[in-house]
């Protein structure tokens, strides 16, 4: 089919398949899938800026579909989600300003790529190790009583924060400041790296907010949904880079894929999901490292996302 804004012609089945695969990831792991799909779209010949913008459009559908799926199982913690979102919006605005500053200093792209590799490596590695050790579960349980007597520094600081409130869906109790601040940090990083923030937000929710895995998935889709709605509208308005036909073909595949992903996520244990996600994160990190280190085929490229 001919894609008017992208200005090229791509096989319909290819787009449906790509969308389905990424939608599946979306439903299963609660990530937007953008960091996988956008590079894939660029590889099949779509201009980078159009790929990124149309992908955002598609993510709106996948995250709406996935969010609905998780909502039915009571997995969306709206209270937590809204706080994270507010923090995220503030953070990403800050982050965009920071990128502008980096640009003026020169070579922002390289810093950004390094950030990516570092973050992905750290997060992926930590998640993998943590999930693998907790899979060995039984022996560790005996040590638990001793640990409770000495709460970590982090826990102590967190418990002292004002405005403590309950988050019933997630079964945790925190100050409202915590998700707000964490949302800001994620927002800054997301703006710098140009992503929806799913793969950043999930470790934050799991490790720092101590939310159960299934609530993490639904709530992260909630945040991604709103981020991508914002990006789609802004990209259409400011850059005219959203290709609706491309997005339509992708989202038919990804909405269906997301539903399948949600069903599969119900059957896996939290640790299994964590391990799979950490493996994917590490795989993406290796691909990025490869792009940085191996000589590219073409030394010139049209402007837009690298």
């Amino acid at each position, binding site marked *: *089919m*001919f894609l008017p804004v992208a200005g090229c012609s791509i096989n319909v089945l290819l787009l449906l398949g790509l969308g389905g695969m990424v939608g599946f990831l979306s439903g299963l792991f609660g990530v937007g899938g953008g960091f996988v799909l956008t590079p894939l779209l660029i590889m099949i010949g779509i201009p980078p800026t159009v790929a990124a913008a149309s992908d955002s459009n598609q993510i709106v559908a996948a995250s709406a579909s996935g969010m609905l799926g998780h909502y039915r199982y009571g997995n969306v913690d709206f209270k937590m989600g809204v706080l994270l979102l507010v923090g995220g919006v503030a953070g990403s605005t800050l982050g965009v300003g920071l990128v502008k500053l980096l640009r003026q200093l020169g070579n922002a792209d390289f810093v950004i*790529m390094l950030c990516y590799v570092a973050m992905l490596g750290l997060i992926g590695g930590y998640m993998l190790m943590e999930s693998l050790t907790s899979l060995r579960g039984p022996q560790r349980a005996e040590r638990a009583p001793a640990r409770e007597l000495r709460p970590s520094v982090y826990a102590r600081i967190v418990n002292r924060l004002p405005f403590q409130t309950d988050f019933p869906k997630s079964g945790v109790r925190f100050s409202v400041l915590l998700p707000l601040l964490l949302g800001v940090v994620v927002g800054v990083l997301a703006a710098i790296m140009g992503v929806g923030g799913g793969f950043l937000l999930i470790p934050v929710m799991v490790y720092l907010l101590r939310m159960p895995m299934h609530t993490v998935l639904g709530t992260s889709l909630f945040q991604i949904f709103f981020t991508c709605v914002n990006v789609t509208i802004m*990209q259409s308005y400011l850059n005219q880079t959203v290709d609706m036909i491309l997005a339509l073909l992708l*989202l038919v595949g990804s909405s269906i894929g997301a539903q399948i992903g949600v069903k599969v996520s119900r059957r896996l244990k939290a640790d299994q999901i964590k391990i799979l996600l950490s493996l994917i994160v590490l795989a993406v990190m290796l691909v990025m490292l490869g792009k940085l280190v191996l*000589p590219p085929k073409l030394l010139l490229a049209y402007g837009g996302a*690298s």
Partner: protein
Amino acid sequence: MTGLGTILFLGSAVCSSAPAAGAPAGAAGMLKITPSEIRQGLSYHGSDITVIAASPEAGDLVLRCLGPAEDLRLRRKARAWGFWMNVGEVEFEKAPALCLVMTSPGLPLEEASELGCRTLAGQGRREAADDELVSQLMKLKESEGLYSARTGGVEGLGSHGSGGSLVRAVFRLPAKAPPAEYRIELFGRRDGRFTLLGAEPFTVRRSGIPAYLTLLLERHPLLYGCFAVLFACAAGLAVGFIFGKGRH
């Protein structure tokens, strides 16, 4: 057969306009392009453009399909500290959006290089140091099918009239060719130099749904964005409901 009709039409036109043996200096070549308008609809995937040209003289010919010239800003990758990254921007002035060159079988591309894509694209960059950059641009455009050159693409259909010849070429226009005014030019070689014998324009434009969407995006971008979001939400939720029915 329209092909035959075209040949007869052009043949008779050339015959009647060139009275003397050996073409007079002002004789022009004529071209017929089929189709004269390309419409990029939803099922468009590139098209073949057939050109039948009548040249007032025999001899080697070059047919060139040219798109509008544009200023390009590209990002350049280079290696620094072990990493490949974008190190800066490269500008090309007045590089054609599309450049397809075909020559007669007896004319190698090197001899017609002054008419070639590389010469046109590298106009703003004459220094030796820029050679590599222009080569990279060529690689980029060739990978998209926007620049190409072929010997023997100009097929002789026979001679006619007083020393003239009739030729045909088929240009492959990729789907990536942007909507614009293009032209096909015919060059002949006289005294070792190439001269323009004739040219004919054709248009590429969007049609149908792609045209409508492009217009909407240009004139009402905010509306387009909101529409895109609403549509995506509706589609996502619809799929969610359809799947939900199976469960409860």
